[in-house]
């Protein structure tokens, strides 16, 4: 029905029902490890799930139908919404959850277009927006433009802010070039500080417009008014993923051909922020607590069961908070129901959820402690997040930027270092089923009797900082001084990080194995993900190697992949299978034998020349860095490969001497144990049979 409406171009009616789409999946992992177990839109900010803020705003602007596009943890979103007031009879709008398994916003939009759910102009918003900006004027302006020209396909609602504010994204400066007369966005560029020293304004832009504004001080929280035409644009360009970098950019570039225009509506009052990074989370919480986002502040008690009361110094307390007489709760703190604070504890500028138990003489500053967490006596918590049901023991020190995920237990007397992420779960690759499985507790991190392990982020450095909670102060310095430029890298818009999310491990691979970039990098990542998944799957089910090989070949043809990509996929798949077996209780040697020996043909098919062998070993090595018992596995793999003639002395030697295999300390460490094998093989590659037998005996 929607496509038809588009063709006939029905005039817009003022009374048409206002629809909205909430993109609930963030398609990114800046909130790791929390988003492993929960969707971002259900994370609580000042003790209220983020999606509530978004819904509340949508209700306030008179939306009547809401579609929630969710890819990750859809069940949780659905359950939450079903139990929320948005699905009750009194709800101002109807809610429908649209499942979409695709890995980007673009796919979600195309999905929406296909389903034809949209009847007219609609609002598109992320599920993590906190806003109280007025919207009528924007909608009116949008509709007026539509009356005049059908080509005005979209309006971006932007909040004007100063040059410096705490929610400002330090990495991606979005520069909108706007014609103030028509509010048309004539040029959009994602400016990365210091990567590209200049912003190029095309001549046409200068010549065709009397006055243009270059705005870099706008908060873009992704509130857009789409028309059906805009939705159709998404469908027409199947490779667009991101609403700004791809969509806006693409439409603007085609302006000459199609004449479609994108407009902006700049609002100078009200509050708007997108909670898309932990720093934004930190900043937005402060804003909410200090009442900038009124009416969205705790004492409005938006949720039916809340009972916050505002007390002196922006301290919000719910009913049933138990405070020891000698405890101090100072400015900017929020305490949820049934939370108890022990004797002598000091809580400053922190948000504490419900039913938390805070021990005695605890110091908590600028921290976020979610529901049902426990903090033992004499513990100090700096700017950190302690998630639901996590517990921190006695005499612990949780340093700045630490993230303690759901259900993690930190034993007594443990110091959690800065910017550590501790979780009980980790993600297993496999996009469709997105397995999240329990990781192995690392007692070095959580102490004896604790539960959880350290989650390493092997994203680009930039994303590391994006994903940091407490980097704020340093960040401010870097924006002003030009000397520090460590934070630059990557070609991706923020959401690019998400689409690569499942391949985060291979991300570091790419940097070692090749110098691909941009488009090809993503293609490769996709192939790699799919191929290694399917090989792993085959290995797991102990399929016939020929069968696996056939499948791989098919994938290779469709994706037009190169040989080294195949080797990489195979290496990673084997490494995963081995790790999987070890987790299942086998020793490293057994695991390697079980995984490799029946499937020799698979390896032989893609590894022939010495250089290829070296490359294959390099991939294995790189992958082993992250694996439990990585060095041991590598030793055995090298041994078995050599023993079964899959690699020869030249290959081993080549690998050993490759500078890439000693690029980092970790790489050096992981391969150290393999040295004897290489020495022997390389030294006496002619009569390797004997060596192997000897080695075999040693084992």
């Amino acid at each position, binding site marked *: 029905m929607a496509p038809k409406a588009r063709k006939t171009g029905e005039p817009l009616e003022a009374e048409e029902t206002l629809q909205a789409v909430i993109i609930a999946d963030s398609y990114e992992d800046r909130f790791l490890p929390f988003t492993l177990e929960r969707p971002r839109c259900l994370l609580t900010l000042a003790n209220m799930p983020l999606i509530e803020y978004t819904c509340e705003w949508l209700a306030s602007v008179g939306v009547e139908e809401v579609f929630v596009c969710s890819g990750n943890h859809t069940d949780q979103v659905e359950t939450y919404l079903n139990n929320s007031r948005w699905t009750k009879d009194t709800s101002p709008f109807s809610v429908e959850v649209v499942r979409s398994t695709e890995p980007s916003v673009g796919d979600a939009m195309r999905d929406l277009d296909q389903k034809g759910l949209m009847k007219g102009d609609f609002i598109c918003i992320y599920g993590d927006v906190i806003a109280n900006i007025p919207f009528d004027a924007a909608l009116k302006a949008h509709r007026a433009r539509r009356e005049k020209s059908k080509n005005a396909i979209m309006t971006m609602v932007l*909040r*004007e*802010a*100063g*040059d*410096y*504010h*705490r*929610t*400002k994204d330090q990495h991606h*400066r979005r*520069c909108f070039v706007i014609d*103030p007369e028509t509010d048309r966005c004539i040029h959009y560029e994602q*400016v990365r*500080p*210091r990567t*590209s*020293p*200049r*912003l*190029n*304004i*095309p*001549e046409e832009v*200068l*010549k065709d*417009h*009397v*006055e*243009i*504004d*270059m*705005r*870099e*001080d*706008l*908060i873009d929280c992704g509130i857009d008014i789409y028309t059906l035409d805009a939705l159709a644009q998404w469908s027409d360009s199947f490779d667009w993923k991101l609403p700004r970098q791809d969509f806006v950019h693409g439409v603007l570039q085609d302006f000459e051909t199609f004449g479609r225009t994108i407009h902006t509506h700049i609002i100078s*009052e*009200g*509050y*708007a*922020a997108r909670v898309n990074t932990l720093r934004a989370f930190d*900043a937005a919480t*402060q*804003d909410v607590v*200090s009442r*900038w986002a009124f009416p969205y502040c705790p004492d409005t008690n938006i949720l039916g069961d809340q009972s916050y009361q505002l007390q002196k110094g922006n301290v919000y307390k719910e009913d049933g908070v138990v405070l020891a007489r000698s405890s101090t709760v100072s400015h900017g703190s929020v305490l949820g129901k049934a939370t108890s604070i022990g004797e002598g504890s000091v809580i400053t500028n922190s948000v504490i959820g419900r039913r938390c138990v805070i021990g005695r003489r605890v110091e908590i500053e600028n921290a976020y402690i979610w529901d049902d967490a426990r903090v033992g006596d004499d513990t100090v918590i700096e700017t950190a997040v302690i998630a639901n049901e996590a517990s921190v023991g006695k005499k612990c020190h949780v340093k700045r930027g630490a993230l303690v995920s759901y259900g993690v237990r930190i034993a007594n007397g443990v110091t959690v270092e800065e910017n550590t992420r501790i979780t009980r779960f980790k993600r297993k690759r496999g996009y469709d089923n997105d397995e999240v499985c329990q990781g192995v507790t690392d007692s070095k991190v959580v102490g004896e009797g604790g539960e959880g392990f350290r989650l390493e982020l092997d994203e680009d450095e930039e994303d590391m900082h994006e994903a940091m909670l407490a980097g704020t102060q340093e960040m*401010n310095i870097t*924006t*002003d001084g*030009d000397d520090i430029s460590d934070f630059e890298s990557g070609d991706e818009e923020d959401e690019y990080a998400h689409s690569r999310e499942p391949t985060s491990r291979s991300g570091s691979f790419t940097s070692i194995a090749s110098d691909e970039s941009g488009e090809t990098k993503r293609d490769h990542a996709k192939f790699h993900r799919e191929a290694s998944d399917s090989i792993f799957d085959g290995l797991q089910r102990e399929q016939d190697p020929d069968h696996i090989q056939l499948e791989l070949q098919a994938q290779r043809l469709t994706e037009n992949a190169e040989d080294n990509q195949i080797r990489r996929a195979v290496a990673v798949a084997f490494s995963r299978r081995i790790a999987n077996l070890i987790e299942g209780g086998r020793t490293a040697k057994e695991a390697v034998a079980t995984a490799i020996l029946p499937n020799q043909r698979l390896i032989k098919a893609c590894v022939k020349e010495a250089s290829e062998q070296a490359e294959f070993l390099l991939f294995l090595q790189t992958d082993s860095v992250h694996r439990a018992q990585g060095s041991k596995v590598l030793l055995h793999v090298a041994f078995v490969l050599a023993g079964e003639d899959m690699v020869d002395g030249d290959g081993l030697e080549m690998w050993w001497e490759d500078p890439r295999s000693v690029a980092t300390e970790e790489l050096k460490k992981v391969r150290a144990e393999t040295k004897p094998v290489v020495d022997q093989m390389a030294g006496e590659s002619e009569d390797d049979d004997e060596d192997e037998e000897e080695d075999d005996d040693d084992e």
Partner: protein
Amino acid sequence: MPHATHPPSPGLQALILCGPGLSLNTFTSTPSTLPKCLLPVANRPMLWYPLDWCHRMGIYDITLITPADAAPPLEAALRSHPVLTSLSGPRPEVLAPKGLEMTSGTAELLRLGEVQRAIKGDFVVLSCDFVSEIDGSRVMQQWMSLNPALAAASFSRRKGGLAVYYPTHGREGISSKKDETDFVATVPFSRPNVMPPTGSLRQGVEEVVMVMPTDTLNDTLDENKQALPIRQTLLAKHGNVKIRTKHRDAHVYFLPLWVKDFAARNEKFDSISEDVLGWWAKAGWQQGLAEKLGLDEVLAGKRSTDDEAANGGSVDEHEEVDATALSSTRSAPAPGRQPPQAFATRVGNSTVPPPRPKLAVPPLLAYMQPASPTQPLIRRIDTAPQLASLSLHIARLPPSDTSPLAHEHKIHPSATIGQQTRISQEDCLIAENVTIGTRCNIKESVVGANCEIGSNVRLTKCVLMDGVVVGDGVQMVGCIVGKRARVEGSSAVGVKAGEAEVDGAAMKGKGKAKQKASAQSGGEDDDKTKLTECEIAPFFVVEAGTEAKGETMKAFDPEGEVGGDEDEDVDVGDEDNEE
């Protein structure tokens, strides 16, 4: 005239640059007789406009800077021209520095020793072709009232500058697509705590971050694959940059004294508008640029020339006191203190400025006039069409108009007008001692002093400068006729005895006139002179029966210019007559 009382002097001095007027060369080919600044615009010498503008804002310390060639006629005019002598106040000083050539750049001019010595305090630089309806004191008020804030914003405690830009578009009858434009990028100047009163120019005051003439912009575009590169540092420093491409620099600059040293120090600066201001604007945000330009030393007060200290008259620049810091209602951030933290987005722009660079360059402000037909007019006259359109605009102003440019008499009482002649009063301007014959029809035209117009003449949208003779039956539309030129009419009847004094030089020019039209029409009974959109040079004679459109008529003969010297006597004598 309305100058009964003088406003209090603001302590500024004005420099009016009387340049050669290259783009008006039809009328100014001989600067020694008729420099650009004496060209009549709506029956007043061009120079009158900036002079009057300065006087209205109380600046009487005015120096006219002119090349040596043009100095004598300029001085003569100041002594004797009725319009100029009618200006009250002391007569402006004429300064003709030795090194000043016709081709010198304006910044070069500032570097000249004579000019350096002449500048004793904060100064205003104007161009002689500046015409403004806007009250100068309102612009100056902005500069003065913002100065303490500017000084506070820069640690050097130095004053900033103020330039004026006007929109070239959006005004019917005056705007033309061919108008010169400048590229100017500005950022909003920090919002005042109290809204300025309506009618204040404060709303239009912005800080300039980049400025260049459109020609330079085009060169830059050509060099960079048709794109204008904008530095990241600009965007990092200023989140909201507005670029205008249809505004023009009015060439009115309120400048603090240190700019003199700034200009003197940088030998490469050629023009004030492009180089001095352009680099100053950039130095505000480009790191290291200010030091490179020696601004640090200039701002620290080191003089580049020693003779300054010897000059007893030099006024020391006082540090501006930050008055807002003394306010009890608002706490200004103590200088040097790092902002403790960033605030929420709603707090707005004014709260936390970034940590400042070591050297803070005082901002260069600009009054950007909004494009609207109701705004008072600001223009520069540097092309003939502009001269015409502006003259006609002034002619349209009713005598009672509040505009400072309006004439007291639309038709001067001393003009003699024949019977059955129709002159549309509302859009015409007829000067003193004009004689107009019978049955003429004059619409939307300006007729200069001592013009003689025959009978049956039709003038539409024409500008006749002083002493033009128009024969019988001539039809002119959109023409600009230079001083003492003659447009001959249909028959010998139109030639009067008085015209015999037209000298040989003009007659030579006549020989060069295009005569094909007259040749064609010679046999016909209708051999009227018809001119459309022509520019006629001073002392040129257009032969009877000429029909022309869009032509520039001037004597190309070099002898004609030599002959110009002889005219000088006539010229001065003419002015004597007017008195």
